[in-house]
């Protein structure tokens, strides 16, 4: 499984325009909807917010992965956003979040969903990947960075 095959160019937001947590999620969801895989946007948003209510998906070192499984989407859809100035996403380490992967999967795709989450976490552990992603300014550049990291 390769992340570069899963992320579509139209689902990349750089830079993220909003600064408030829920609005950032909505902005990323809108990008995800550009793929045509979001069947019911309101239901998808609710699934993401329900998951956030269990605990923030803001992780360490500036990464946030808002995610949910819901039949409001068709298959697996990922959107990606970069916030160069950082956003308070209530991250586990108390720091700002800079790189966002929003991930939604239909209920039947548990295995693919789990593996996609693991893939994102694994890539993010590469120092070069983190640095280059935070400096990226176009979707094309972001796809190229992901491809390079996956080689």
């Amino acid at each position, binding site marked *: *499984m390769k992340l570069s095959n899963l992320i579509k160019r139209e689902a990349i937001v750089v830079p993220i325009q909003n600064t408030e947590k829920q609005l950032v999620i909505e902005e990323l969801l809108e990008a995800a909807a550009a793929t045509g895989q979001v069947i019911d946007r309101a239901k998808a948003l609710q699934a993401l917010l329900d998951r956030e209510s*269990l605990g923030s998906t803001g992780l360490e070192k500036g990464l946030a992965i808002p995610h949910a499984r819901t039949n409001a989407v068709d298959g697996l859809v990922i959107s990606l956003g970069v916030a160069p100035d950082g956003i308070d996403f209530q991250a586990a380490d108390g720091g700002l979040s800079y790189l966002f992967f929003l991930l939604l999967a239909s209920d039947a795709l*548990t*295995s693919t969903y*789990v593996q996609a*989450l*693991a893939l994102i*976490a*694994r890539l993010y*552990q590469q120092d070069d990947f983190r640095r280059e992603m935070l400096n990226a300014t176009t979707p094309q550049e972001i796809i190229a960075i992901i491809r390079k990291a996956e080689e």
Partner: protein
Amino acid sequence: MPKTQSGRLISKILLLTDGSEGCISVAKYGIILSKITGADLKAIYVVNTELLKQLERARIFVKIEEVDYESDLEDDGQDYLQDITELAASKGIHLETELLKGIVHKIAIQKIEEWEADLLIIGELEPGLSRQDISHDELGLLLRKARCSVLVAKEQRGLDELFETLT
């Protein structure tokens, strides 16, 4: 040509899957090889609970998600094993199945020994989250530690056509 105790080079083929991509290729390879060699065929589906634990430790999952997804993966595993049992039956092959949970490479190695498999067929297993994780390189560990030959099934042009022509 070297032969096993049963007198055949391949007499027991074990199929391993953990829900990674390529599950169906693993099954098709196994069924084709079983048909050609007459070997017994067994499939195990291992719910990768280690990966779920890693995701929980990395705070990507909260505990309730880990529990929910483990249960869902068990259901997926049952469905998959049922599907490939029917796939094998469609080619006149009997397939034994088992659903297991844990660290994928450890369970596979244990099953190879218990069932005395002489060929293991796997897909392209995904590594763990970090190099510090016990299961970071499932594929490498299996290749090094398995006491039988290992075939890594990849998406290959012609596999589906060959499978379809199998009678």
